[in-house]
């Protein structure tokens, strides 16, 4: 089956004239935890629903395990119930008229499994999610966390080709969410199932995923490992969406095989840049606050720029500096040791491995 389990290729979905999924392409490898991350209304849930067959694509192809699920150009559309997917809905969609056991048994009953096998596998699935003792409980008597586990057990009970999770943690309170996140991770390791996970929570995405696809306004902005998308965002949007950013403006310089950015007289920062950047281009440099070190004034070293402290806020475990660099305000956390007074000149040391240059 090669290294591609799912091939989601150039898929388009329009509501009226507005494309909500605009030529999105990605692949998922067997056993991979793949996350679609983006703000609400960006098309990530629609993408998941297209995978499940709950929406019909207007163009593109979806192939799972070498079998074409949807290809409107060729008139192919495999019905929802023939796709062999497991899905956990945001609302969990636990059927209120069925017991916990019957909820989980449903996919097996549909598949006409023998009675004894159903009993065994439902029990197994319930054990996996830690609800082994609740089988006969009515499903409306469950807490949110328990409902979530039932939904998960129902999705994995028949070993689906792909497990689809639609913001499964968003309805849980913070503490439970962290616990379920850890459990989800353990479960994924144990079952070795390929997972497509939809979320708007970047912390969840970073912690759980093998790879993340950042979606914005129906388009894929970037696909990569959590470290790649976090540390080297390709676009301003990806940078902002995944966490706090430090941005300085400057001019791209290329000379003798070296590339750096001149930060308007404040210093220079070495960057990796491809041919899209020409010498003299106006650019922004994007980095993460924790990757920028605040140093007392001294001689400017490599990848350092000068700045002035405008304000200091006491945050308890650290200090937060508001500094001015070449006419731009930046907010940086720093240790409480060796504090810099307001008005002092300081140096900002960038980590060249963790900066990205973006064209303005």
């Amino acid at each position, binding site marked *: 089956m090669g290294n591609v389990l799912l091939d989601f290729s150039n898929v388009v979905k329009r509501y009226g004239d507005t494309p909500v999924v605009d030529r999105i392409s990605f692949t998922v490898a067997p056993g991979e935890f793949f996350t679609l991350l983006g703000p609400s209304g960006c098309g990530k849930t629609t993408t998941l629903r297209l995978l*499940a*067959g*709950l929406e*019909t694509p207007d163009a593109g192809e979806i192939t799972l*395990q070498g*079998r*074409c699920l949807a290809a*409107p150009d060729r*008139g*192919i*559309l*495999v*019905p*929802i*119930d*023939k*796709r*062999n*997917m*497991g*899905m956990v*809905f*945001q*609302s*969990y*969609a*636990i*059927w*209120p*008229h069925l017991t916990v056991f019957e909820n989980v048994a*449903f*996919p097996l009953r*549909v*598949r006409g499994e023998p009675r004894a096998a159903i009993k065994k596998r439902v029990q197994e699935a319930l054990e996996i999610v830690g609800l082994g003792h609740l089988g006969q409980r009515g499903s*409306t008597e*469950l807490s*949110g966390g328990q*409902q979530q586990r039932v*939904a998960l057990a*129902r999705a994995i009970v*028949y070993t689906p*080709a792909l497990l*689809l999770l639609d913001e499964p943690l*968003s*309805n849980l309170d913070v503490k439970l969410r962290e616990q379920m996140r850890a459990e989800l991770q353990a479960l994924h390791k144990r079952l070795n199932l390929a997972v497509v996970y939809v979320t708007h929570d970047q912390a969840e995405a970073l912690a759980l995923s093998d790879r993340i696809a950042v979606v914005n306004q129906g388009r894929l902005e970037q696909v990569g490992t959590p470290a790649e998308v976090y540390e080297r965002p390709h676009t301003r949007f990806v940078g902002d969406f995944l966490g706090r950013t430090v941005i300085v403006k400057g001019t791209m310089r290329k000379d003798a095989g070296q590339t750096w950015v001149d930060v308007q007289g404040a210093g220079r920062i070495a960057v990796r840049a491809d041919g899209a950047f020409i010498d003299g281009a106006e650019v922004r440099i994007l980095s993460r606050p924790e990757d920028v070190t605040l140093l007392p004034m001294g001689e400017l070293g490599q990848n350092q720029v000068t700045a002035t402290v405008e304000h200091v806020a006491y945050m308890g475990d650290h200090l937060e500096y508001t500094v001015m660099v070449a006419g731009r305000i930046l907010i940086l956390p720093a240790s409480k040791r060796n504090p810099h007074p307001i008005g002092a000149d300081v140096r900002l040391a960038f980590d060249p491995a963790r900066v990205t240059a973006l064209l303005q």
Partner: protein
Amino acid sequence: MSAMTVPAVPNIWLKLRGFRGAELLVLLFFAVVMALPILFMLVGSFNTAAPGETPVYGLENWTRAFSDPQTLSALWMSFLFSVVRLIPSLTLSVIVAWLIARTDMPGGHTVEFLCWFAFFVPDFPLTLAWILLLDPHFGFLNSVAGYLPFVTGPLFNPYSFWGIVWVHLGTGGIWLNVMLLTPVFRRLGATLEEAARVSGANTLTTLWRITFPVLSPMILAIAVLSFIKGLESFNTELLLGLPARIYVYGTRIYDYLRQEPPAYGEATALGSVFLLVLFVLAFFYRRYLQGKKKFTVVTGQGYSTLRVKLGKWRYVAIGGFILWFTVMMVLPLIFLVIGSFMRRYGFFNLSSPFTLAHWQNLLGDPLFIGSLKNSLIIASTTAILGVLLYSVVGYLLASRRLAAPAVLEFFCWLPWVIPGILMSLGLLWIFLATPLRGILYGTVWGIALALTIHDSPVSTQAFKSSFLQLGPDLEEAARVSGASWRYTYLRILLPLVAPVAVTVAMLNFGSALTSISTPVLLYSAESRPLSILLLEYSFTGEIERAAALGLLITAIICVMMLVGRRFGLRMTNPQRQEVKPGVGQPA
């Protein structure tokens, strides 16, 4: 891998087989049974020949109908009745709803239940009971009043304009208004009133300046609803209006068709005019509602309501309600019982005034046995057909995937505007002028079909809102789990809407049992239902036997509704349904 062998289905065919196909079928059905009768009626109004004969077209019907001053007066009377009735009925129901929902009146839940109960008491037996109470010759209250000084001759006369208005203060509509308004008052966010109180307004000012204005769009909407419903009113006007020669348009149509030979032409001309009026009204009503959408969502958070403390007035309030309920509901029902057991009603000073003879006559009457059988067949068919048809329609409407949802909605609302007697008139043309004559004309199936159509608005709405409330997730989860649509429908959707299905079936069964205006044009000697038998007893002066039959019908309905209530038959308060699918849903 076995899943690989599943054939891929072409997109277009799947669409046609799924939603598009179902939508097309439903639309086609509605077009045939709803749009076509109306079209037939409009065309038929220009046809001067009797239905089934070679048509001759001309304006004769219209000129004849409108040169008859009684036609215009019937239209005018319909409006007059509806308007005059509206004022006390709306005032009373607003007050009672407010008392139930927003005050500390004792026994609020009981009052709510009594209103619910009263709604189901059929109006024809009630009207009969008022005849027993108010008839100039044998009415009990007139006899009692006769003993008062200065009273010569009968004090009350039910066969009059005000008699009809009076009887309507106790029949279905007013109780329905209470049931519709109570949740509206209940849902009003308490914070709006609390803010007014904190701003320094007292209870009365708050009520007058905040509560009523905020709710005015809803109240007005219900007012228009009951006005249009009032125009359709038929039974009371038939029983009380005919002896006094007071005609509303419905009884006028009935009268035209009772003539020998039946004046189909005039009846259809009158029906067509009325239809136009109703359409104009309904059009503005819907437009008004759409314009007011932002106003109607005054549903605040939760149900935490600030209840108005009435102090000693709470006893006045509950006392007033008890008085009203006793006079309008308990008293008539008691006299219905008494009437059915009296040898000759009104003659209390006979040596043995009470007898079981009327009941024995009734139960032994072969007409009764036949009618009972007919009624049961008609009502069961209506109930089953309604559930099957409108659950699908409601599902389609809730799915939001239709090509023409507005058209389907329009069809479903059509019978809401079209009174039963007009619908039957239209259907009569279809039944007579098509090959369906054999199966549908004068048979129980024709009546059941007409009644099913008449049930469409409420049934569709009930299913639609219940499917909407379920949301798409429960269904989609089953589909993703590998269940076919049919399996999903049977195992997931149907069990979840079962309480609604039972409710709809009960309501339709009940209305089929009591409806007079719908079957009155469609029945024959072989398919006569109980309600028509009741009508015939009343007209032939067998008032005691009519009382017994009316009581029997009332009893059947009440028992059914009480049983149905156990299944979550609540009509207006879906929040209190047995199944709560919302538990797992996002806040």
